[in-house]
């Protein structure tokens, strides 16, 4: 029998077994689905968080807030000084008045808060755009520390600090997801192994006949391996579909929201979906191999 014929036979037998014992097969498929759904969800969230970080990185600025009452001359002198640093692309001087106007434009409902206070309530600042926001050379950190120590400067706000924190959260989420999905996948492998062992037990009579008439171990075990693999693929496909459904639902329910832009701006890539499905297949196959390795069929 050619390998292709054998594989076709394995697949056909696997599908027959799946339909005959659909209840136990469903159990194995669902455990794989749950584990991959959890793993996929963490993957999706961390992917979106990291994508947001990348998007924001291009928009990050360093803001040097001056002491209240700093004169426009001081503001422009310091802005010019800041603009001369080699890592600075542009240094924009924002007067206290401009800052107040921007606040009122951004938050119209709160505009009363900054009205009628006499002096300008918001400090003047210098918005520094960096040439390469992704890089953080030691000279830049030293330069920012110098600004922090300047008497004219009240505070230095580096956007990239909280971006790094989000990156850490995303990495943490991914790690937790991998660990959680790994644990669940181990449970799924165990369940698949039990299901395959049960199926093999139910076919014990047929296996003894196959062995009697001269079937090879590959021919005897092949359908069970295929069954585990198909169960895993089905689990991976269902998990991917469920994940897509949850993603679509979130986008429909929370359009243009922070949650959507943070967690559901984009779905998993084709390669990631394929990986998820194949991971399911690999888990099912591992379960089948494990179950039959210890069994004398």
């Amino acid at each position, binding site marked *: *029998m*050619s*390998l292709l*014929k*054998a594989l076709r*036979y394995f697949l056909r037998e696997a599908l027959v077994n799946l339909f005959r014992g659909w209840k136990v097969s469903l159990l194995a498929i669902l455990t794989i689905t749950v584990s991959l759904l959890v793993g996929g969800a963490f993957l999706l969230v961390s992917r979106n968080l990291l994508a947001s970080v990348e998007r924001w990185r291009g928009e990050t600025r360093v803001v040097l807030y001056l002491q209240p009452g700093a004169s426009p001359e001081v503001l422009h002198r310091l802005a010019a000084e800041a603009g001369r640093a080699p890592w600075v692309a542009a240094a924009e001087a924002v007067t206290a008045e401009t800052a107040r106007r921007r606040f009122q434009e951004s938050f119209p409902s709160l505009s009363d808060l900054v009205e009628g206070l006499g002096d300008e309530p918001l400090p003047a600042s210098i918005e520094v755009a960096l040439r390469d926001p992704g890089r953080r050379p030691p000279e830049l950190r030293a330069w920012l520390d110098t600004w922090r120590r300047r008497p004219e400067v009240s505070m230095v706000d580096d956007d990239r600090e909280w971006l790094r924190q989000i990156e850490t959260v995303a990495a943490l989420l991914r790690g937790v997801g991998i660990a959680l999905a790994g644990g669940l996948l181990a449970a799924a492998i165990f369940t698949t192994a039990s299901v395959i062992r049960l199926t093999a037990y139910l076919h014990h*009579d*047929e296996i*003894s*006949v*196959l*062995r*009697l*008439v*001269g*079937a*090879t*171990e*590959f*021919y005897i075990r*092949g359908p069970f391996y295929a069954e585990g693999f198909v169960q895993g693929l089905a689990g991976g496909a269902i998990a991917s579909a469920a994940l897509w459904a949850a993603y679509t639902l979130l986008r429909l329910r929370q359009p243009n929201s922070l949650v959507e832009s943070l967690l559901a701006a984009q779905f998993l890539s084709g390669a990631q979906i394929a990986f998820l499905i194949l991971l399911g297949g690999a888990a099912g196959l591992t379960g089948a191999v494990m179950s039959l390795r210890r069994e004398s069929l």
Partner: protein
Amino acid sequence: MIHFFQVTKRYPGGQTALDRVSFEIARGQFVFLTGASGAGKTSLLRLIFREDVPNEGQILVNGRNVSSIPPSKIPYLRRTIGVVFQDFRLIPRKTVFENVTYLPRILGTDSKSQKKLAYAALRRVGLAHRGNAFPLELSGGEQQRVAIARALINEPEILIADEPTGNLDPDLSWEILRLFLEVNLRGTTVLLATHDRDMIQRVGRRVLTLDAGRLVNDQEIAGTDPPRLEALSPATEPAGDSAEAETP
């Protein structure tokens, strides 16, 4: 065809199933293997198709030392030996046709040739019309005939039967025995284990007698009422697959 040289088989509990058994069966012979229950008949048969291995001695089947065959080659040995059991070993959820065609399927025979082979094998045992039935819809005698058709489908060189009439009434037993004798007429070597001495006396042929694992008698006896036989038509036609072929 089958050579046993000082074969001893002991089971882990210390029980000796076979004790220095030696004999030789030539190609085309029909041999009865008899003895009381527990005499070692089944143990001897299991050694031939390498279901078990002897503790001592050598077994040659068709020139091959079966004790030293690597596990991966055992299937190829078994494809040359048809085996029939007392309990038929048919799969109840498979049709007669499916039960008979296990070996052709393993060999990758196409479905058209499988049907031809199955029809020929079932015709040979008089069950060509029951291909779509399930085993439990058949009588005991018919089930055993299906098991024989399964054993014969690829024209084995050797046919081994372990108490094939043990579950059947005398008339059916005689009918089944006739089948084995007719298969033998076509040149297949047959080794049939039975404790039915009346049947042996009636048919005649060579008889190996075991007692507590020892071969105590090896004689040719003349039958008192041998059946009239006709050589059966070939069970199979060339299907392009060899039982010895290396397959998955």
